[in-house]
């Protein structure tokens, strides 16, 4: 089974948010009905009732969030949840009814038409569900569209477009027309168009929803790879929670235009905000969302070479283990010492462990590996799977911890429990 490469670490820290959204509301409807709808929404009236009473549609209601520079932020919701409206509010393709959007500290609402166009052109680009390419222009001409609007000269624009097409694996199709390409390739052009503009922010409106599952998987890998290299601030819209969990540094769950929960994938899995989310995440393939970090344990016992074998044997006995990692002063793994070897050494009265007694019977993994990658590695050796970060042993993953994480339920009494249990059994028995 193939899995995605590791995610880029979340860019958190002191930097101010790239995008800040505060109390954002959008109502589709005429002036008075919209005002009435906003008032009803503030009283907590549901979307359907608002529609019936005022005729206005409450698309997004009172949503606030920050997106850090370099973050891949996923907005996830079912159809009609307002996610497509929300992403269009972020570059004012749709005018908000109320609330503010700051992009890199600039209030979008205060911009005139010209400034707004400049900001869209230079700071934000967008990828669309149905690609939205110009059918009468070649792939390269499509890729350079943003630069053409910016007024970049033809030669440079072509160079940049070719670079962008190279990035998405379409370097050899620059002179084809979009109509000659498959859906997946067309979306690569859409992505290249956004990359060529070299904007800080990338808005992606369900970019992979129209693609076949296999192609979608390729495109997800491509995005993960590009993001690791380019570190854009990406707002990614999807209705697929697995996709959201796979890609998102953080995920915003939207339901009926209202924010339900924001958090990292494991956070949402571990503590869903309400029943709606809980039911939702019960279908998630945990083995792809949770990583080694989520199940890491402090090793019960580690050993250094200068320890007396007889002492180590005692500690091993207390830890109920048959072997232990031997580490140096920098906590780098030198090897594994087994109890039988320790027994021999103790019998000869040795005062330290001989390096030649160490065995290589262990496996290591990186902290951000998904559990699916660990399943075939855990439980094969006398010592648990080692989690190594930058050459250092940071912890271990016992087999039981992996299996427990895959079958754990945030709410054991939840009605969806039986359903998801069967899912987890399947994963656990791989």
């Amino acid at each position: 089974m193939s899995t995605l490469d590791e995610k880029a670490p979340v860019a958190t820290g002191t930097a101010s948010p790239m995008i800040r959204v505060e109390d954002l509301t959008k109502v589709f409807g005429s002036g008075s009905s919209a005002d009435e709808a906003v008032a009803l929404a503030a009283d907590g009236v549901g979307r359907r009732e608002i529609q019936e009473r005022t005729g206005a549609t409450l698309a997004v209601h009172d949503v606030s969030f920050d997106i850090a520079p370099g973050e891949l932020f996923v907005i996830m919701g079912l159809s009609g949840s307002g996610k497509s409206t929300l992403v269009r509010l972020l570059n004012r393709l749709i005018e908000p009814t109320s609330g503010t959007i700051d992009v890199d500290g600039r209030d979008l609402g205060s911009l005139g038409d010209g400034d707004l166009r400049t900001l869209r052109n230079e700071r934000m680009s967008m990828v669309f569900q149905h690609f939205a390419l110009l059918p009468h222009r070649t792939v390269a001409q499509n890729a350079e569209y943003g630069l053409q609007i910016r007024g970049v000269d033809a030669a440079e624009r072509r160079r940049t477009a070719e670079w962008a097409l190279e990035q998405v694996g379409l370097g050899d199709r620059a002179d084809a027309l979009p109509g000659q390409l498959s859906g997946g390739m067309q979306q690569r052009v859409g992505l290249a168009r956004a990359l060529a503009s070299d904007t800080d922010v990338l808005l992606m409106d369900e970019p992979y929803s129209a693609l076949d599952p296999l192609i979608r998987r390729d495109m997800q890998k491509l995005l993960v790879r590009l993001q690791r290299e380019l570190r854009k601030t990406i707002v990614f819209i999807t209705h697929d929670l697995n996709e959201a969990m796979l890609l998102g540094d953080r995920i915003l769950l939207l339901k009926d235009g209202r924010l339900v929960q924001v958090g990292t994938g494991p956070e949402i899995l571990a503590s869903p905000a309400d029943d709606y989310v809980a039911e939702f995440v019960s279908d998630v393939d945990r083995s792809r969302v949770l990583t080694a970090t989520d199940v890491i344990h402090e090793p019960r016992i580690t050993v250094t070479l200068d320890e007396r074998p007889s002492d180590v044997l005692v500690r091993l006995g207390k830890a109920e283990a048959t072997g232990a990692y031997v580490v140096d002063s920098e906590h780098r793994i030198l090897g594994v010492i087994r109890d039988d070897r320790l027994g021999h050494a103790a019998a000869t009265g040795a005062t330290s462990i001989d390096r030649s007694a160490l065995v290589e019977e262990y496996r290591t993994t990186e902290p951000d590996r998904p559990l699916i990658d660990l399943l075939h590695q855990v439980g094969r050796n006398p010592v648990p799977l080692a989690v190594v970060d930058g050459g250092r042993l940071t912890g271990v993953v016992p087999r039981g911890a992996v299996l427990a994480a895959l079958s754990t339920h945030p709410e054991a009494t939840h009605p969806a429990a039986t359903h998801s249990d069967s899912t987890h059994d399947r994963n656990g028995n791989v």
Partner: protein
Amino acid sequence: MPRFELGSYVEAFILWLLQNAGALFDGIGAVITAVVEAVTVVFTAPPWWLWLALLVVLALLVRGVGFAVFALLGFALVSSFDLWTETMETFGLVLVAALIAAAIGVPLGIWAARSRAASRSLRPVLDTMQTIPAFVYLIPVVLLFGIGVVPGIVATIVFSIAPAVRLTELGIRGVDSEVVEAAHAFGAHPRQILREVQLPMALPSIMAGVNQVIMLALSMVVVAGLAGADGLGTIVVSAVTQLDIAAGIEGGLAVVIVAIFLDRFTSALADRPDSSLLAKLRARRATAPTASTTAAPAASSGAANRPAGAAGVAGVGAGAG
């Protein structure tokens, strides 16, 4: 029910226009006359065989061998009817009328596509222009511009402008809204969006409109003849008044030949069929090993996308020749 004297009011208005704005209409008339005469000279001055050859070559370029054969036989027939000059005059008349109609109609269509109000208010006007019997406005138009080619042109424009407006509006409204949205998202100015996204993507529809304008303009040839414009219309009108079946048939057939030629010609400009000589030339250039990046965009019309097949057809054509 009191009698509403609408007809008298309009008549009074026309007479008022004639007295107070006569110079304006004379000016417009003079310009149109000059343009039509210039175009007609281009069509009628060279010997008939030169134009025949040119039309055949054009047919070959835009559509292919079959259309070229039709052009050769059709226009040879017209020439043998002794209607060459009249046919060329009709050509000039129709082209000028269609050009003016498109020049007014396409911008109106763009306007209608961008504004619901414009679209709503244009619709009944276009309906009226298309359905009101031509003779009704021929009288005031002749009064304003005098007998001759100008009232013929004006009447033709009034009758034929509707499809240019309607199909332009339809074409622009039909452009994939996500593509327009993408242009906005990349910061394009509305003018750029119109020029680089909406008009190119609406082009097939706009060309279909222009094609319809030309066909409707041809159907007005006889009315134009009544108003005093030269051309095949005059032949048909005199045949009708003299009950000359033979002359009527020949004149009518000449109109049909011109109509079919212009229809196939303009629709080929919109569709760019693979069988056209132009497409084959493009395909050959695209497959040539020296094809540079500058040549490539030119080769990117839909026609050039099957280089192997097109080259094969070209090879067969060369072999047959």
